[in-house]
Each structure stands twice: as C-alpha cells, then as structure tokens.
C-alpha cells in the first residue's frame, strides 16, 4: 500500500510498531504534494522544513514511547487558522504575507499531540464561498475531476485529504464549509457542536456560527482528530466546559433501536436527479442494521438560508472591519487616511467578501436592524425549535449534505444566489449550533455524494457511532479519485 493512502489510525499503528518513521511518512507526503498539487492547488503554503522538524521530534517521542494517536501524523491546516511564524492569509489578498504572532488553540493542541504540519490549505477568501473559486490565489480543483470545484470553503483541506496529499486535515464550517467540500471530494467531514472546539485563532467569519472540525479519510480518523481538538479553552468564552469523551469508544457498528429522522424539506426542489435515491439508499442501509427511520418535517428550513445570509454577513461586516491597512496585511497608499481605508479595502478584498460586508452593514443599519437582524434572530430560534421537536422523538436526523455533486468551475460564480443554495442542506445545522457529519455514500455520475448525519448538541458520540456504522455497513466502499480532468459520462 502507498504510504500516503494510509489513514491516520493505520499510520499511527505503523509508526508505533516502528515499521515506519514519521520522517519517512512526511517525506512521502511532501513528494505527493509536489506531484499532485500543481494539478489541484490545495495548498497555499507547504511547510516543508517545519514538517520535517516536527516529524523528527515526533520520531523521538515515538522512540521514547510517549506517542499519542496523532504523534507523527501529517496534517494539513486550513489557512484560516493562525500559525505563529507561518504565513496565514485566509485566502485573501488582504493578508498576503501576514505572519501571525501567535497560534490558534487547535494548532497548539495538535502541536502538543505531536502532529506534523504539512502546510496551509487553500480556501475561499475569509471562508466565504462554496466552491473555492473565491480564493484570492486561484481556485482549488476537485481531485475527482479537475474541471470541477472541490466545494468550499474548506476545499483545499478536502481536496488534499481526498488526493492523499494529507492524512487528515482541519477545516472550518460556518454554513457547511467542512461538510459540503467533504461530500464533493468524497471524504468524511465533521462540524462539531458550537462551543465544542475553541475558535481562538480562527480568523472569524461569522462568530456565532463558525466551528473548526476535521476532514478525514474515514470516520475513525475524524473521531481521533475531534478528540484532540475538542474541549474548553479559557481564551474562547464560547467554548463549553464539558468533559471530552473518548470518541473512538463510539466506533461501534451498532445502530439497533436508534430512531432516525429524514426531513422532507432537505430534498429540495432542483436537487440533482439521482441524489435523493442515493441518499435514501444509504439511509436504507442503516435501517437494515436495525435502526428505525421516520419521515419528519423541519418546517423552518426554507427560511434558514435567508436567515443565514443576514446573520453571517452582519457578523462578518464587523469581524472584517479590522482589516484597514494600518496594523498588518495589505495597505494601499493614499494621500489621506480615509482614502487609504477605502483603497485598501477596495483592493484587498475580493468581490464575494465585499458583497457580504455590504449585505451585513446594510442589515445592521439603524433603519433596517429590526427588519433584518432582529427578525433573523427570531427565525434562528424557530430553526432551533424545529430540531428540538424532532429530537424529542428521534435520535438523529439524516439528509443529503449537498443538493448536487461537484459542479463545474464558473458554473455558479455569476449567480451568487445559486452559489448560496449549495449550502441549503448544511447551514441549518450551523444556525442551530448542532454537530453534523458528512460521510461518503456513493458516486453519482462518477462523482462523490455525501450522507449528512445531525444529532443534538454535544451528541458527537452518537454522530460518530452512526457514521461509523454506515461506513461499516458495506453499502459503499470508499473509492479514491484518479487524478485528472475527466469527461464525465455516467458511472
């Protein structure tokens, strides 16, 4: 087996058995990145020297018998996570060349766990986008078909894992930015409950929705990485002080007696033909394993998209105000301060970021605050109540992750609303603060499809258990993409 094809848990076992060193594994990945990344553009920064130094340190820990499950494992970090001393751009021209003075809490936790950082992955600018086409540094391409998008905004992380250019990766999910690219690239992506993972050092897009989570080759790896990053952080007051369970203990293929809900609103009009059948077939596999499945309604779902596109831009408009060209990052020269502000932001931000800043500024303005922001917060409550009502009778909700498979580059960039609709199945989960996972459940026209599982808040153990059970069901055996530009004509 190719070294780069190993999952994290397989690689960890091999490392601990001393059959392989982390330096060897890291070298293999650096070579793999060199070979495939010119095709994919998944990485913005490859941390070659740091990676090898970290691998050597990991090998010392392994030799001393002090290794944990991630010691020596090569990991990719979405470029929205700040890394001390390593350029962090969030996919924006605004932060080109910016070297942060500190590291995100999750980055520190992974460093402490002995992980090896391969590099920083490409993303939609400031995590705003569903296709990665809004990266200021050029799009990531889908390893299954380089004429297609990988999804977004964590498209770089998803593509890197799918193309074996990272064992495992971190992404961030504000409206589906982990789960949707995971689905489109055929990997596992998990968005934890809001408050489960520290956001300190995550360059904020929408603070009440953002959450960091793993992208992985299988559910086991996602569970391991989640366990490493979860938990209370005194530097993030929105993290919850609950003990972090051993998520790997939930890796049991048993769903007997579980009540699974399928919300009819998630099978949206305009969904790609064949998608519904594929997802329902995957749900059928869980039913055959002993779960019961019921059709339910989450009636506020159609309003979730509009709500999201008020709340997220509103928060973003404030979060991005600090980029004024004075303290760090891109700075345009101009004769006066106000002109410099204007030029810096006009030239530093891309079109989608500007669009959202304007929407958010408008929604928060005194005249429209009640009509938009206040109303959106009320609908947010309704969306939560919908889920609460379903969870009173069911253990989990199952749905498609994305209404379509990976679409072609340029297909939706001219129509922002079409792009926003890509997240219609994922963003209610962020609005309600719930955990969700996308697991690969088949290929449609030769392109990956994701099954989304949603559980109550802090129900990640159940989430992992159902996802693992599905993975083990044999309904779909994960496939690897053959890199290159394919002309797709049915599978």
């Amino acid at each position, binding site marked *: 087996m190719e070294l780069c094809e190993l999952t994290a848990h397989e690689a960890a076992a091999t490392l601990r058995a001393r059959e392989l060193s982390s330096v060897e594994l890291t070298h293999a990945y650096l070579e793999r990145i060199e070979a495939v990344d010119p095709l994919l553009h998944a990485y913005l920064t490859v941390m070659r020297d740091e990676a090898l130094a970290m691998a050597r340190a990991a090998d010392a820990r392994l030799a001393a018998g002090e290794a944990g499950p991630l010691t020596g494992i090569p990991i990719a970090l979405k470029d929205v*996570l*700040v890394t001390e001393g390593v350029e*962090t751009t*969030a996919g924006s021209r605004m*932060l080109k060349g*910016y070297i*942060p*003075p*500190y590291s*995100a809490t999750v980055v520190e936790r992974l460093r402490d766990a002995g992980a090896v950082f391969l590099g920083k992955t490409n993303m939609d600018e400031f995590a705003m986008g569903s296709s990665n086409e809004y990266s200021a540094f050029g799009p990531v391409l889908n390893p299954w078909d380089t004429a297609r998008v990988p999804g977004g905004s964590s498209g770089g992380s998803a593509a890197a894992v799918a193309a074996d250019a990272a064992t495992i990766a971190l992404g961030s999910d504000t409206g589906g930015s982990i789960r949707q690219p995971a689905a489109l690239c055929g990997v596992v992506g998990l968005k934890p409950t809001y408050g489960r993972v520290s*956001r*300190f*050092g*995550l*360059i*904020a897009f*929408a*603070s*009440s929705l953002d959450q960091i989570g793993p992208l992985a080759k299988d559910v086991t790896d996602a569970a391991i990485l989640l366990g490493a990053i979860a938990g209370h952080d*005194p*530097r*993030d*007051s*929105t993290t919850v002080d609950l003990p972090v369970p051993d998520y790997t203990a939930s890796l049991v293929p048993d769903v007997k007696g579980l009540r699974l809900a399928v919300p009819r609103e998630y099978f949206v009009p305009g969904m790609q033909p064949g998608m519904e059948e594929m997802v329902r077939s995957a749900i059928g596999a869980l039913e055959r394993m002993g779960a019961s499945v019921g059709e339910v309604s989450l009636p506020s779902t159609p309003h979730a998209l509009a709500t999201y596109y008020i709340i997220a831009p*509103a*928060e973003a*408009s*404030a979060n*991005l*105000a*600090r*980029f*004024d060209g*004075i*303290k*760090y990052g891109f700075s345009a020269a101009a004769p006066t*301060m106000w002109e410099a*502000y204007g030029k810096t932001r006009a030239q530093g931000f891309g079109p989608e970021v500007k669009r959202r800043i304007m929407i958010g*500024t408008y929604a*928060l*303005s*005194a005249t429209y*605050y009640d009509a938009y*922001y206040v109303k959106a917060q009320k609908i947010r409550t309704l969306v939560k109540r919908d889920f609460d009502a379903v969870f009173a009778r069911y253990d989990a909700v199952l749905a498609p992750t994305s209404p379509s498979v990976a679409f072609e580059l340029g297909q939706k960039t001219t129509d922002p609303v079409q792009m926003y609709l890509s997240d219609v199945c994922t963003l209610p989960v962020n609005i309600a603060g719930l955990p969700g996972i996308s697991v690969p459940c088949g290929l449609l026209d030769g392109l990956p499809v994701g099954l989304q599982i949603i559980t109550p808040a802090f129900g990640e153990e159940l989430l992992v258990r159902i996802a693992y059970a599905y993975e083990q069901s044999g309904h779909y055996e994960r496939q690897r993409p053959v890199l290159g530009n394919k002309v797709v004509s049915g599978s």
Partner: protein
Amino acid sequence: MEFEPVIGLEVHAQLLTRSKMFCGCSAAYADAPPNTHVCPVCMGAPGVMPVINEEAVRDTVKVALALHCEIPPFSKFDRKNYPYPDLVKGYQISQYDMPMSRHGYLDVAMDGAPFRVGIVRVHLEEDTAKLLHRLPATRGPRAGGAYSLMDINRSGVPLIEIVSAPDIHSPEQARAYAQTLRSVLQYLGVNEGDMEKGSLRCDANISLRPRGTTGLGVKTEVKNMNSFRALQAALAYEIRRQAEVLRSGGTLVQETRGWDEARGETLPQRSKEFAHDYRYFPEPDLPPLEFSPAYVEEVRASLPELADARRARLVAQYGLPEVDAATITASRALADFYEAAVAAAPQGAARDVANRLLSDVGGLLNAQGIEIDQSKLTPGNLAAVVRLLQDGTLNSKTARAVLEETFTTGKDPAAIVKEKGLTRIADPAQLEPVVRTVVASNPKPVADYRTGKTAALEALLGKVMGQTRGQADPDVARELLQKALAE
C-alpha cells in the same frame, strides 16, 4: 428671554484593574513606553477573542451600587462599529440596550444648595488606542506630510461610562456633580480621577430652554474638557453662545463641539455627514452577563464607607462642624489623611487638626493646585505641628511657617523649630526688655492708648511680635505691655 440650561454629563472612567478588559495585559500603562502593554488580543490581530475581566465587572457593579442603580439579572456586551485607527478591531466592545445597571442617582452637596442628579446607566466597555498626531516633519523619512503615531497601550483598558440624566442646570452644578462623582469613584478605589491624564473624562450634552418651560432644545455635545475648571468654563461659554444664537432668532444645529482651552471657546468637531450609525449588535464572542441577587448583595456588603457616611461619622466621632466634615470627606485622600493625622495627634486634638488642615494646609494646596497626596506633608508631621502648638512651643503664626516648610520639604517639624529657632518665648524676663524698647520707641500709639484708645495696644503687640520674629507668646507679651503702659 431668560434661558435655563439643561445639562447631562457622560463620564468615562478607567478602572484600576490589574489587567485589561479582555486580555491579560497590564492596565497600568501610564508611564510605560508606547506599545509595551500589548498582545494580539488588544492589538486586534486576526483570530483573537475577548475574555471578560471579572474584576472590571465587579468594579462596575460597585460603582452602580454606590450610585443607587438597579442591577438587572441579565446584561450583555455589544459591538459598536465605527472605523477609526484608534479602534483596532473596527468596533468597540461596549454595552447598548442591556447595560449592567440603570436608574440610579447621585446627591450633590453643593455649598448650601444640594441637588440630586439621576443616573441613567453605568456600563462597561473597553478604551481605545491613543493616536499622537504629528505636524509635518521638515526632514527625515517622514518629511513633508503630517502623520499620526499609534500607541496601543490604552487599547482594551476597562472603561466605565456613567450617563447622567439631564438634571443639571448650571456650569457650577455640572462641576460639583463631576467632582462628587469623582469622589465616589475614588472612595471605591476603582479610578484614579485624573482628568488631565485622561483616566477620568467628561463630555457634556447641553441645550437651552425658556425658563419655566419643560421641553428640550437642540443640544450640542461638548468634548475635550480636561479639568473641572474647563468643564465649567466650556459650559458657561456654550450657554452664552447658544443664548446668543437663539436671541438673534437663529437656529442651533445638533453637533459635537470641542472645547479649545487656549481660545476659551467651543468649536464644531464633526460635520453632520459623519453622523454615525454605530450598527450595534450583540457581541457573539462573549456570553451574556448574569448576576444573582447573592452576588449583588455580596458586592454591596463589600462597599467601603462612602463620603456621606464618613461625613456623618466625622461629625459624631470628632465633633467637627458639618461644613468642615463635608470639606474633608469630599476627597477620600484628604479624609484618609485627616484620620491618620488625628490618630497620631494628642488626645482631643481632632478639631485642631481639622483647623490646621483646612486653613493652613488647604491654603497651601490651593496655592499650588495640588492634591494632599501630591504634597510632602505627612499625617504624622501635621500631628506633630498640632502637638507643638498645644504644648506652647509654637504659636499660630510660627505653626503656619513650620507647616509650610514641612509641606514643601517633608522635614520633621521639631527639627524645623530647632533649625529656625522658632521656639515660643514665654519667659517674662526674656520679653521684658523687648516690651520696654517698644514702649519707648513708639510714642504715638503709647499716647493713644493712654488717652483711652485701647486698640492701640494691638499695634504695640504687633511690634513686639515683629521684634521677636513671631516667637513671643502673645498672651504674656500683652500682659507685660499693659503693665508697662500702666506705669
């Protein structure tokens, strides 16, 4: 037409917490070099998050309780958005519609005309960075244009905003209110109270209305007043200015005006096109604040004795006149000084200590424009002077001289007495020759006295005091003079 001013004050006070409002940096930046009390959080680096300083929250509750405010069980922080380089995040974390406290009042005991000012709210926020504007340099890399420097040390220092109701009706009342408020903050130990250094800042909203009416006129907001005196002067100017506009049939515009100390006038600061929409919304990075009744009561129980209570106690405990007690307790520092001096002075000298403190020391403080804790006078030295007075070593006049000396040098009063030979002369044998000389060389007042103008005695006594450089015991000297004149 007669106008009545309607004034409300917004006072910003930096809290004396150890760390800043939302990060671990030291808040004591006053004498630190620029940009040394900073970290990614208070510099607004990408990705940082705020963490609430519990000490600052507690201090705010203290202030609110001292101002008789209600503490609602829930409050929250909001983002106040506006672009300016002194605001490193592009928004200030402040409180908008759910402040930590509301509906209080402050009683102001202004010289015989006490009044009450409503407190609309006390809320907690973060201070901004400081901009230092520089004129164009003639040479060097910045030659040519004006530029500004940023000092981020102040960014994120906890700041409370105390908003008064428009219950103030004169510049004198405004000043008295602000001074009383400062006293409360100082009693609580939460603020330094230095307007010049900016640890205490005061903005005023002022409008005029025809006396006897209850409506509100067009208001202006006056800023940039760096002392209590400036506050009073700026408001007096603004009243004149507004009245002139109204009397001449003009209309006032709602605007922000800055007090120009040098010119002695207020000038418009921002034009209307910059009228701000701060786009407040709840700060998503912070949980709401929740206060249990038990917490509020615990903070209330921890409040120190405030000025009102202390004044009453000084009257009861030391027998001070009400007005003296009020003057002493107006400043916590002065009251602390007084009580320390009383403790060091002889039994029963409390009133003498008060007299010396208010007359002699008060005069010295006023003359130099400083506070008691900025002088070199110690409570022990004031007590020593009182002791020297009581045991007859000093008289009233020499006591003042000794006080003045120890006030500026900090020297021990006994040493000053010895050094200057100021010991009182009460020995008749020593004074007798002086008295005789004075009687012999001042025939006019002697003749006056002898023809019944007894007031002339005081002139002669003055001569005796003068010749002894104030050391003569006036009672002994008077007795000797009378005896000599009767001869």
